[in-house]
């Protein structure tokens, strides 16, 4: 068994891959595929309590390859990765590393075998420096047993330089932008001797320049013979950086192909099957916007300002209209969404709802004024230990119960919502934490659907969702629009805004810089404006 737990910085090779290409263009690469099969899984099956998560799956990873893995949530990607990373030890089928059968007993075992993972939620320690994060758990010591800062900083700097990243190793991790934190985490995984690195949604929180930089680093790693598994919902990214792509659907590997030989339409068709036209449209990019300029204005802001987040934001939301607000992460749009719901009151400017000045100093005031928000973080929205029905009725208890609660009425409302939104499993008494992420998001949305607000603000409504669940959200939002409420969709994902909005505002560094209305808009034009 090849196991080399000692720190092993990658050899520095292949220059000139940094920032020399347009966004999303892959860096030029020498070599490419063809190092022979490094990891091979065959006939893998795994089920949870009788529900098959993986069925007879074959998967192979070549040395020096970037292998894309796409599919809906629940298609089995995560389960397969957990098997590879040693998190799940019980499964049927065989796993071979370098041709020899291997059975990983733990994540520790996986690390010893040279398999590492960079999670979507970074696990770095924000309070420590970059160097400390790279050397986490293996800090070099001086003769006196104290930490050898000089060696650690120099080592980390050399190590990061090898990856083509220039960061001060003494900088606190928390002071770095997310994209750099991710690269530091990647370098830590490399530093622990990983030959196979699993990247879970590495581009979901990155701006286009950061994506380009990440792809440069991944290209270097490929040239150095490392193998990468690239899990992503962003098909453009997968096609741009991967050598091969594998598509999962319903726990099966439905196709594996060379990226050079396929296009986005081909992948989407295999990923979602038939019958998701609207979504397919938004995936493919272009859409014509039809604003509803004749409808009444339901919410209006004048010169809203919150120092450090956004300034001088004036916008209108009309009845029966979906207003999209797009911007890169950190452009102030998430803060703006909170302001509209009274969670983060603005310092200057004013907000009117239905023509009346609304003092949105608290969330309860905003709710009474007829504004609702579904925040981007499910954790911030939901009560995991409480049953589904309590999560659904918390915002409308005043209407159901004067003094005494009426659980039967609450359950009836919940059953109604569960059916309308196709929430699974369909039980109002299940603790919410036991539902899947997509279903939790639907519950969060369901909260506001029984007594409709005048304005519904959705912050990143489809983040981390699978295609099917995204499609459901698109349908729900369109249904709400037909019922005449004003909807604001705030997102850093162009696909989300494109698939939902009737009119789009683009924010950059806290300022609205562009409005798209009554024109054809594509992902490229949106990105160019931001």
């Amino acid at each position, binding site marked *: 068994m090849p196991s080399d737990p000692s720190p092993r910085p990658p050899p520095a090779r292949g220059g000139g891959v940094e920032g020399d290409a347009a966004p999303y263009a892959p860096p030029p690469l020498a070599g490419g595929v063809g190092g022979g099969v490094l990891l091979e899984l065959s006939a893998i099956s795994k089920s949870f309590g009788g529900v098959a998560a993986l069925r007879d799956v074959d998967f192979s990873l070549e040395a020096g390859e970037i292998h894309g893995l796409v599919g809906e949530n629940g298609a089995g990607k995560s389960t397969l990765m957990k098997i590879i990373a040693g998190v799940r030890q019980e499964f049927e089928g065989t796993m071979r590393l370098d041709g020899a059968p291997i059975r990983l007993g733990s994540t520790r075992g996986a690390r010893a075998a040279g398999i590492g993972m960079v999670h979507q939620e970074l696990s770095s320690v924000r309070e420590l420096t970059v160097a400390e994060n790279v050397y986490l758990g293996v800090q070099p010591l001086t003769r006196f047993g104290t930490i050898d800062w000089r060696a650690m900083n120099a080592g980390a700097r050399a190590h990061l330089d090898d990856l083509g990243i220039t960061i001060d190793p003494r900088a606190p991790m928390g002071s770095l932008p997310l994209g750099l934190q991710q690269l530091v985490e990647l370098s830590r995984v490399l530093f622990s001797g990983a030959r196979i690195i699993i990247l879970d949604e590495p581009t979901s929180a990155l701006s286009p320049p950061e994506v380009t930089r990440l792809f440069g680093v991944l290209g270097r790693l490929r040239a150095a013979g490392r193998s990468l598994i690239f899990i992503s919902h962003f098909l453009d990214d997968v096609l741009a950086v991967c050598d091969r792509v594998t598509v999962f659907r319903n726990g099966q590997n439905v196709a594996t192909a060379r990226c050079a030989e396929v296009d986005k339409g081909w992948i989407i068709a295999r990923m979602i099957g038939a019958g998701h036209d609207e979504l397919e449209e938004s995936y493919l990019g272009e859409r014509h916007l039809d604003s509803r300029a004749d409808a009444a204005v339901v919410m209006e802001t004048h010169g809203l300002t919150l120092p450090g987040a956004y300034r001088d934001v004036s916008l209108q939301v009309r009845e029966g209209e979906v207003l999209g607000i797009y911007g890169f992460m950190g452009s102030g749009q998430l803060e703006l969404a909170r302001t509209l719901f009274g969670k983060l009151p603005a310092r200057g400017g004013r907000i009117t709802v239905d023509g009346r000045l609304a003092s949105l100093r608290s969330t309860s005031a905003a709710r009474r004024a007829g504004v609702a928000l579904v925040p981007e973080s499910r*954790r911030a929205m939901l*009560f995991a230990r409480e049953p589904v029905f*309590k999560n659904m009725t918390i915002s409308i208890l005043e209407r159901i119960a004067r003094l005494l609660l009426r659980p039967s009425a609450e359950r009836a409302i919940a059953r109604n919502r569960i059916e309308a939104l196709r929430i699974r499993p369909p039980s109002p008494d299940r603790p919410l934490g036991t539902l899947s992420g997509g279903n939790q998001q639907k519950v969060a949305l369901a909260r506001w659907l029984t007594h409709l607000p005048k304005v519904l603000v959705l912050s990143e409504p489809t983040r981390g969702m699978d295609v099917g669940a995204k499609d459901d959200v698109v349908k729900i939002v369109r249904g709400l629009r037909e019922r005449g409420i004003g909807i604001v969709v705030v997102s850093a994902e162009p696909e989300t805004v494109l698939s939902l909005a009737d009119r789009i505002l683009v924010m950059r560094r806290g300022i609205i810089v562009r409005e798209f209305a009554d024109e054809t808009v594509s992902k490229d034009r949106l990105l160019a404006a931001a």
Partner: protein
Amino acid sequence: MTEPVALERGRAGGWLRGQLRNVAPLVTLVFLVVFFAVASPSFASVGNFYNILTQISVTGIIAVGLTFVILCAEIDLGVASIANATGIVLAYFTAQEASVNIANLPMPGTVAIILALASCIALGAVNAFGMTIIGIPSFIMTLAMLQIAAGICALLVRGQIAYAVPHLVVTLGSKSLGPVPWIVIVAALIMLIAHLVLTYTRFGRYVYMVGGNREAAEYSGVNVKAILTAVMVISALCSGIAGMLGVAYFGSAQQNEFDTYLLDSISAVVVGGTSLFGGEGGIGSTIIGLFVLGVLNNGLDHVDIDSFLKILIRGLILLAALTINVYAQRMRRVEGPT
């Protein structure tokens, strides 16, 4: 993305483990009762049962208010001081005997009671103001209130002892209805009302939701500050009632006479299984916690051991009870939703 992690595995076993947190304090209680019943012939008698009930009544009333606060994931360290201050305010407004050399502003009994209640509500409102408007963490705010209320006590009695309180309070605090002391009836009534409020009212639901996930409550449009204000006032009001009855029960009003009730009431709530992190537990848990504490305190007086050793034994048994709670909770966490 998330898999149905081990949810289907062993439904029944999971349920049992889920109940363990609720059952653990009860098991502790049964164990203590059996132990003392065997160890001492005088423990298991009807008379002693009423003793225990009476002994835990004052703590119990304070613990009811504290349960609301702890369910919201806050703490009130001022309960004992507020109880003390309210009792002394009551005495201050009651005509004292000539032998008691104390500043005194006699009022009719009803007025004195109303003024005493108003003062404890005011102290609770000050707590709430500090927490929700200024933004002081409850631990610090109520620590300050502990001092403030103690200061009020000191100023009003100036080292003296007052004895007289209104008739109604004397009756409820120290007389009996048949074999049952009135103070036990009052405590039971307060517990019943609190239980109904927490379980069946909208306000009760909000309390659990605010404690379960404060941010989510806020994102749901719940007026979190109003809920916190309400629980701090409820806590102070319960303390005030306990303080008034306590003065009648002890037969005197003086400084520092409630000092042990702070830790006793917090212990009762926590030993009963209400989580300090909020959202889990209730009056039922608090009642069991009260009995664990009451049986322990009472039982140790019935067995023949060094009275100086008893304090240590009491601490160790409490530690054991809390340890069992934590393990029971952890078993559920592993199995249940994350």
